């Protein structure tokens, strides 16, 4: 792909694109992080919940045991077991949640020790109760049992404190992360925004420059048009007078001017006529630039045959015509007609002094399109001048040798380039010339 865009705009565009990709990646990563930190926070709240429950259960276990010792109500034993079970479940959950790492691991291990110790104490109390209620009561209120309860409470409190600390830390980290993300995101957004604005300005400016250039071109075109107009009107008027009055002079005073006088008048008349032709050709040439193309399918063979007839009907000559296969073409009918007229009449002109003139016209497929050619065995030309061939008013022969204004081939080239095509020639002095052309429009 060929780039027409301004380089600055292109760089800006690439950078903006890069930032956008970065922003996308950044957002994705941040989102992941955010999810992770939310999970951690959720994890911490769950741990805290289980610690709380364990604490509640352990207190209740103690209470139920005390009640049982006091009342001897055996239904309380069931409640006791239930609470113990509950406490165990929470403990197990905690073990699972905390896993094998972290500062809580040590604490949960110590909870296990104190819990076990408590459990053993309770068993002893219950065994003692079977024989003596008083003994059990004493044991229940003993320093050892109380200290065990306190230890449990302490361990759990420690755990809660530790987990709370973790939670606050995580919350804080999360907030810092969010803030960091928001800041970076904003900076990148602003940066991308600024670059896009700059790119917009650059593009806008280049559009403006293009519009200005177009405007300039259209002014130049208008100038050319008015120039053409004034050439056609103002240059022709004096020329008309020169030629007209010289003719009048020759008609009315010719006999008194003598042979030399008349010869000189003829030269004036001939040159005025030639200048008229030059102006007409120049006008045709410049008018062509302003014309728009109307495409249609053209039977080239028929067209060529018709043109040959038109060109030879008034000046019968012995020319061997070899009209080969000719593909149809999609082009502006009037213009392509002009192309063929100019090429064929050139071939006729430059074979004028040849003994047995042969003109070959044909087409062949090449470059994915059709190449048309007109080949003659006329005077040809030196290929080192081929660059002058298609330029306005450039001629490779003088007017005494062959008449012409030097506009014909320039006109042909202009028509062909208006059709996005190409024309070129191959020739050798005294060995004839061949003109080839193709239009970019595919043949129908």
């Amino acid at each position, binding site marked *: 792909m060929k780039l027409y865009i301004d380089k600055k705009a292109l760089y800006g565009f690439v950078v903006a694109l890069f930032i956008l990709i970065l922003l996308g990646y950044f957002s994705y990563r941040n989102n992941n992080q955010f999810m992770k930190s939310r999970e951690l926070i959720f994890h911490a709240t769950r741990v805290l919940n289980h610690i709380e429950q364990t604490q509640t259960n352990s207190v209740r276990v103690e209470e139920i045991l005390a009640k049982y010792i006091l009342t001897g109500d055996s239904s309380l034993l069931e409640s006791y077991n239930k609470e113990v079970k509950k406490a165990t479940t929470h403990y197990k959950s905690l073990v699972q949640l905390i896993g094998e790492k972290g500062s809580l691991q040590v604490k949960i291990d110590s909870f296990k020790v104190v819990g076990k110790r408590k459990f053993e104490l309770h068993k002893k109390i219950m065994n003692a109760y079977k024989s003596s209620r008083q003994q059990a009561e004493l044991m229940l209120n003993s320093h050892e049992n109380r200290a065990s309860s306190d230890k449990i409470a302490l361990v759990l409190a420690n755990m809660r404190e530790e987990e709370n600390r973790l939670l606050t830390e995580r919350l804080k980290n999360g907030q810092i992360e969010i803030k960091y993300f928001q800041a970076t995101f904003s900076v990148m957004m602003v940066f991308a925004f600024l670059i896009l604005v700059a790119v917009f300005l650059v593009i806008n400016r280049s559009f403006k420059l293009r519009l200005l250039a177009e405007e300039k071109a259209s002014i130049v075109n208008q100038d050319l048009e008015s120039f053409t*107009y004034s050439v*056609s009107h103002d240059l022709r008027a004096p020329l*008309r007078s020169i030629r*007209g009055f010289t003719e009048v002079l020759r008609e009315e005073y010719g006999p008194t001017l003598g042979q030399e006088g008349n010869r000189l008048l003829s030269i004036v008349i001939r040159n005025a006529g030639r200048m008229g032709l030059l102006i007409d050709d120049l006008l045709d040439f410049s008018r062509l630039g302003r014309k728009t193309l109307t495409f249609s399918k053209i039977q080239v063979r028929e067209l060529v045959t018709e043109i040959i007839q038109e060109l030879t009907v008034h000046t019968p000559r012995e020319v061997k015509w070899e009209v080969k296969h000719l593909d149809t073409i999609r082009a502006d009918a009037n213009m392509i007609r002009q192309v063929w007229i100019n090429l064929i009449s050139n071939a006729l002109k430059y074979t004028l002094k040849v003994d047995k003139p042969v003109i070959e016209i044909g087409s062949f497929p090449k470059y994915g399109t059709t190449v048309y050619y007109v080949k003659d065995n006329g005077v040809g030309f030196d290929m080192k001048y081929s660059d002058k061939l298609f330029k306005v008013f450039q001629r490779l022969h003088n007017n005494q040798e062959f008449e012409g204004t030097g506009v014909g081939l320039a006109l042909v080239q202009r028509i062909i380039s208006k059709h996005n095509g190409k024309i070129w020639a191959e020739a050798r002095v005294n060995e004839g010339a061949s003109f080839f052309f193709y239009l970019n429009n595919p043949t129908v």
Partner: protein
Amino acid sequence: MIDRQVEILLIEDNQDDAELAIRALKKKNLANKLLHISDSEEALEYLFGEGNNTYPKLILLDLKMPKIDGIQVLKRIKSDPDKKVIPVVMLTSSKEEKDIVESYNLGVNAYIVKPVQFDKFLEVVDQLGMFWLLINQPPK
């Protein structure tokens, strides 16, 4: 100024062009009933002035003239209910399409691109079929 004999009215500001046209017409004995007016304002006065009731058989009208140009004169003639029947031949210096199209839109009868070779002028008049109109007059 009022001349009922006028058959060709030539409105042309360029004296040299006018002279060549008159000379060409003279060759065919058509110039004796010709009136040449070199100023378009004057020509309009001649055609539409108060009390003027002139009907030339043909008007040869130059396109490019100072002050009032040929197109404006043509507009004036073709918008007049009586005079719009007079055939008008526009004399132009070039084939510039817009002039031609504009003239035809206004109902011009023909146009002649002033040839560099002025002899061709008569050929053109001939080709336009105007000749019979001028020649087929009962001699006075």
